[in-house]
């Protein structure tokens, strides 16, 4: 599934994270948050390592990872695109924006382009409803986006 191979230094990082939560399985979600913040995603080996540190089953960790949409097992693109799919954005045409992005990037929602440059996701309400429809690329927020602007927006990302 993923080519990630865990190294000793990774194990050390995970150990530290788990210890900072007293290796308490009740803090699993916080630990996953912190770990994903560190690695960008949660590949299999990392989940195994977390399970080992917390003395819980990997199945349990995986069950939690797959339950919450915030956690991901695939790395995001260098520029992670998120389209707000809150109702406000939806009624102001977010669907068209997603279609256009899919068309331009030739990927599905949740996918990453072959060159790893862009990834595309939908999320629920970033709370910038006044700017609907909203697209986030990395940290940058694009408001009142129209389908015909997508090409130019994407082109502005070089690498």
């Amino acid at each position, binding site marked *: 599934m993923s080519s990630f191979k865990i190294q000793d230094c990774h194990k050390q990082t995970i150990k530290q994270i788990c210890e900072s939560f007293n290796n308490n399985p009740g803090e699993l*979600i916080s630990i996953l948050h912190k770990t994903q913040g560190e690695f960008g995603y949660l590949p299999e080996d990392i989940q195994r390592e977390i399970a080992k540190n917390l003395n819980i089953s990997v199945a349990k960790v995986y069950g939690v990872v797959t339950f919450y949409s*915030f956690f991901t097992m695939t790395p995001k693109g260098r520029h992670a695109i998120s389209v707000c799919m809150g109702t406000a954005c939806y009624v102001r045409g977010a669907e068209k924006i997603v279609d256009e992005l899919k068309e331009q990037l030739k990927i599905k929602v949740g996918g990453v382009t072959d060159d790893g440059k862009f990834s595309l996701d939908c999320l629920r*309400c970033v709370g910038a409803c006044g*700017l609907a429809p909203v697209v986030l690329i990395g940290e940058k927020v694009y408001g009142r986006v129209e389908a015909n602007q997508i090409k130019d927006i994407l082109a502005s990302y070089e690498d």
Partner: protein
Amino acid sequence: MAQYKMHLLVCGGTGCRASQSDVIVKNLESSIKELGLSEEAQVVTTGCFGFCEKGPIVKVIPDNTFYTQVKPEDCEEIVREHVLKGRRVYRLLYEDPETQKHIEDSKHMGFYQKQLRIALRNCGFIDPENIDEYIARDGYAAIGNILAEMSPEQAIDIMKKSGLRGRGGGGFPTGIKWEIASKNKADQKYVVCNADEGDPGAFMDRSILEGDPHSVLEAMAICGYCIGASKGLIYIRAEYPLAIKRLQVAISQAREYGLLGDNILGTPFSFDVELKYGAGAFVCGEETALIHSMEGHRGEPTVKPPFPAEKGYLGKPTNVNNVETLANIPVIYLKGAEWFASIGTEKSKGTKVFALAGKINNVGLIEVPMGITLREVIYEIGGGIKGGKKFKAVQTGGPSGGCLTEKHLDTPIDFDNLLAAGSMMGSGGMIVMDEDDCMVSVAKFYLEFTVEESCGKCAPCRVGNKRLHEILEKICAGKGTEDDLEYLKNLSYVIKDTSLCGLGQTSPNPVLSTLEHFYDEYLAHVRERICIAGRCKALKLYTILPDKCTGCTACTRACPVGAITGEKRQPHVIDVDKCIRCGACYDKCKFTAIHVQ
């Protein structure tokens, strides 16, 4: 605190931040410094003003000048003209959509005139990262008074008398909830703040946490005193980085002042608050699911009873209140239960915050007294429908709610009236739709959400909502039948009747309510195969108007399925059977010769 003659309040909410309000703060500050006005004017980053449509907002105190859509490059002018010379920068003032007049101060804006801000009283007023400003506004006085003068029973009694009901959706009376939790004996109890706002299109909880975090902390402490808990937990969406940061700042400031921690204000009462992060699961808004999530498990709900008040976090009695509910609480103790109970309707007291969005002029966050009519909200506060289009419906309550139509425009909004109208208060999303919105598609949109957010534990929600969504898709694709409408109805009732938790018990509401109010639209989809709003792609009929077609062949080349044929320079025709209704020809035609039905 230093005395400034002028305060420039800049909205630091997520919406305005997205349009660089942080840069605006910097620019204002540097211009003030440059012009030597540092002694006179102060720039304050506040929480959300609610008027997100026109963000970023800069409000100048004391004259209440309300600058909208300010850009970083406007700052120098604001300082030079307004701060230095007292002249308003007219081009940045809010323009009334009807009269096209610039309105100088916020007191005269329709958006604010009908509002009554209780939960949002400090949002856009104080610097949320400065506890001193909160204290200056009587912050922590409520908990102080309670600790000094009241027994928990007395304090609960006030809460009961105020008539405050939970703002998270259910509307359960807060005082009674506290009373139940207080009566369960245990060595440890917990106060949980539900900040897992997941309704797509509602963001009041986030705004409160970003704009007035101390109110929530103070209310949690009050609740802790009332029910006998010394630990508070805030379960907050990880997708709210700014709210998390503000809460962290607030918690550490409150701890430094000793307003959280051991022996608060020299009394025996101790209380502290910790943050727990959600990870993107709507169902975690449900109390039991939320508690499982806080314990590090999958956020699956469990059958109630036992209620959290009996057996909650780590098996201990737990009281869960949502953010907006909590934000109301300190002020109730300061101004009295009678004051609060005098606002609103008979059974719904106080105010409600709504996130007004959709096809409306003034998108934003509003707080209105219970009992206000939809008409007032849409036309007076919201400034009417965008682009002068015709109002069709308002969706309230998000994926758990339903649609209100023209006939509900004058119904006073409160918990019970909304329920009677087939919708619900929910967390307070209010999405306005106009004639271009297809109600079948709207129902489909919400079901798509539910399908994605169902936890999968119980069969009716896991499979039932999926089937509802499939049938709606079928109808939108022009393949539905009248039997499907019947089955939709039965399925919806059964899902409501049998689902385990609130998510499934309310998820068919968007379907049932649109079926009730817009049955004709459904019928048109399945009988005539027409989408009145023209939103359903598959139900569009593309034809070429022969008198307009020049035979340029642009459409023929654009058509991905070769459905368009014709001689050069002769009118072309579309083969309806081959046409996949992609609209490519429509986009390409320079002569508006493609007609869409």
